């Protein structure tokens, strides 16, 4: 399921018009549906900006010209030069699906992104009929935004007009936020999603961390967290219940025989799910390091599309914000997502005695089209058992 990216917002210029730039110097920040990336100078010289910050730009569009004759001569008046090298955007994603003219018209009139519509045409192309169909769906019906640009009423008396700037502010959704919104809604519409819950006693994992933390830090230079345990427990459970590690593609079921697990990371710009590759082959330290790296890059806006693609399962941790219980939404085309929550001390019954234990609720949302209740529950129980008794991971039961 390739994402198509053909435009973005040139969020910010790092240079001013007329600046002398060096080759490969970062020039601007480009925000697309998925990621924020940097554009660099293709040559050294004096730059002339052709696009204002905040403008929507097409991939491949020339956003600035660089007069390479002026390199190193800051004061020299820049004469138009034949050797001016255009700085252009290079597409972060490979080819985009061509659209028919009627589809393009409907996309611009309704605001429905053809990329979010499932196509019935040749090789999955979106047809006009698909766009009309998408318009009649409730999710898409909300898409045409009422713009405030042209007030319907003639200028009202100044006093009557609410000082809207104070009580409300209005800004355009970023492409990233729009994409998140679309995908969440699409997931809820397409999948037969439901959630099963369990709880897990964290005593054993906490004891292991307390016991080995110092040695772990000494050896690896990073801390042993909970995520490595949960990731390992998930891989273990995926192997036991392969249906969870499968996805629907049309009327086919695709079973994945690899274990690339997405770990949701909250960033200023929204939720991102970088994928940790081959979790079955990584050790605890390897997983901790991979998650740490991905989270840092996500927060720094340095993540690439490739980092976000190809996961077979997702773990999301609402617990870091204090959530006790929630129902996560599947990240399509994956078939399930595990939600972790806050660890709270609670009285529980163990061997007929009430004892206080650090407990966490677990939630597994799954696509019932593909996964049966028995499989989902078994999977979650496997995760619970592995966390409560990590020795199971070593022994493989």
């Amino acid at each position, binding site marked *: 399921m390739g994402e198509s990216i053909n435009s973005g917002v040139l969020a910010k210029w790092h240079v001013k018009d007329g600046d002398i730039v060096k080759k490969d110097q970062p020039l601007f920040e480009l925000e697309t549906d998925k990621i924020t990336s940097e554009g660099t100078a293709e040559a050294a010289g004096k730059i002339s900006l052709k696009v204002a910050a905040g403008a929507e730009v097409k991939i491949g569009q020339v956003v600035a010209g660089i007069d390479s004759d002026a390199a190193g001569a800051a004061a020299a008046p820049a004469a138009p030069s034949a050797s001016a090298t255009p700085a252009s955007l290079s597409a972060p994603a490979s080819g985009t699906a061509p659209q*028919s003219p009627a589809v393009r018209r409907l996309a611009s009139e309704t605001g429905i992104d053809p990329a979010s519509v499932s196509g019935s045409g*040749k090789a999955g*192309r979106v047809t*006009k*009929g698909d766009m009309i169909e998408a318009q009649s769906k409730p999710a898409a019906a909300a898409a045409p935004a009422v713009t405030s640009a042209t007030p319907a009423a003639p200028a009202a008396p100044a006093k009557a007009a609410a000082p809207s700037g104070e009580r409300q502010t209005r800004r355009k959704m970023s492409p990233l936020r729009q994409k998140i919104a679309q995908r969440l809604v699409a997931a809820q519409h397409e999948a037969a999603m439901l959630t099963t819950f369990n709880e897990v006693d964290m005593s054993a994992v906490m004891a292991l961390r307390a016991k080995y933390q110092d040695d772990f830090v000494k050896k690896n230079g990073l801390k042993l967290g909970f995520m490595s345990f949960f990731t390992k427990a998930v891989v273990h459970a995926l192997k036991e219940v392969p249906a969870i590690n499968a996805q629907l593609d049309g009327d086919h079921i695709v079973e994945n025989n690899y274990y690339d697990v997405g770990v949701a990371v909250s960033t200023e710009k929204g939720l991102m799910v970088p994928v940790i590759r081959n979790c079955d082959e990584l050790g605890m330290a390897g997983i901790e390091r991979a998650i740490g790296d991905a989270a840092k890059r996500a927060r720094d806006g340095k993540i690439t599309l490739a980092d976000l693609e190809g996961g077979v399962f997702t773990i999301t941790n609402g617990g870091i914000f204090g959530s006790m219980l929630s129902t996560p939404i599947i990240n399509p085309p994956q078939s399930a997502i595990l939600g972790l929550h806050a660890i709270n001390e609670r009285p529980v019954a163990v061997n007929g005695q009430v004892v206080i234990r650090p407990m966490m609720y677990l939630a597994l949302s799954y696509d019932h089209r593909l996964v049966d209740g028995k499989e989902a529950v078994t999977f979650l129980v496997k995760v619970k058992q592995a966390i409560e008794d990590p020795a199971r991971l070593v022994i493989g039961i």
Partner: protein
Amino acid sequence: MSSQSFDLIVIGAGPGGYVCAFRAQQLGLKVALVDKRSTLGGTCLNVGCIPSKALLHSSEHVTFAKSHAAEHGLKLGSVEVDLGVMMKKKDAVVAKLVGGVGQLAKARKITIVTGAASFLSANTVAVKGEKETTELTAKNIVIATGSAPVELPFMKFDGTTVVSSDHAIAFDKVPAKLVVVGGGAIGLELGSVWARLGSDVTVVEFLPKIIATYDEDIVRNFTRLLTKQGLKIEVGAKVTGLKKAGKDTVLTAEREGKVLEFPADKVLVAVGRRPYTDGLGLEKAGVKLDEKKRVKVDAHLKTSTPGIWAIGDVVAGPMLAHKAEEDGAAVAEWIAGKAGHVNWDLVPAIVYTEPEVASVGLGEDAAKAKGLAINVGKFNFAANARAIAADAADGYVKIIADAKTDKILGAQILGHNAGELISEIVTHMEYGGSAEDLGRTIHAHPTMSEAIKEAGLAVSKSAIHAL
């Protein structure tokens, strides 16, 4: 008897068979291509589509010289036709094309075996040539034996008075009176040729209309145009036989109990074609036929015997060269383990008269009969600049689109070069295009193709050059 073994044997070197052989060779298979004729190309190239098109083209010049040259200021005097020269030109066209296919086959190192093929078993075929019989074996065999003209049991072909299309492309003189039995594409094309060359042509059709699969309005307008050209068209008439009246031959027919008589020098029987499996020995290979004597195949053109496939006219579906070609390419791909593809819902069909009639997909009448909600857009060539400048203002384009999704369901075109014009609609349809898509695609001006764009716009009542 010599014996050779191949990956694939294709029986029949018509457009289906030779394309299948060429594609299979491209995909790395060792291929034998068998045909009774010493030239490749089958009916289409030798005695069908191609010679008839050459004659249609030549005879159009005759019509122009006789009837239209003067309006262009050309003073030609009296126009005479040298039929021998015209036939030689036709033969040269055929020779060039069959020669070209032969050269391609040779360059591709395909083994050509000339003779009549007959199955000995599911993987062995005997080919009886002039001098010797060759035995060929292969794991996969494709039956591409095509079709032959249907004969009327009470009026068998004699090659002189009662003729098939095979003969009607090679008369040695222009018959004074030609009666064509059957108002389909073949009968109307050859009827047009001889009418232009001076024959008094009567077309006798059993059904209530000619080219019966087309929409009522298209047929009505087409019939009117043909009649204007001098063809006499008799529909709803059942041919009953041939009789002698003195030294003349008379074709008899019957309509609503009334006897009709058509004096004829020659009678062209063009009532259809039958799948050709004569002498193939299909029973020895266990290949079954359907109720209409066509080779029975599944959705992948596999016959009832594993390893034996059938394509083109010999299986169910329209008997058209381009459909056979697609069948052939797909089968070669399937045999080679690739993903072959034929969209049998989108086979265009063309009648190469003047004007031509072309269609693809569902007609308006068929869509209505199915109870579909449709919008129809029409645009007349009389409002198209290029058509007017080129004396081709007869006819119109009609587009049938789904009322809700605007998806193009079909199209019919009556007009000069309709066969060339239909292609872009087929392409749009192949990609699930809507009528609006046609209307929003740039068409060069001035061209007749603008009528397609306008008809696309007319579906939503927004044609620019029509009200």
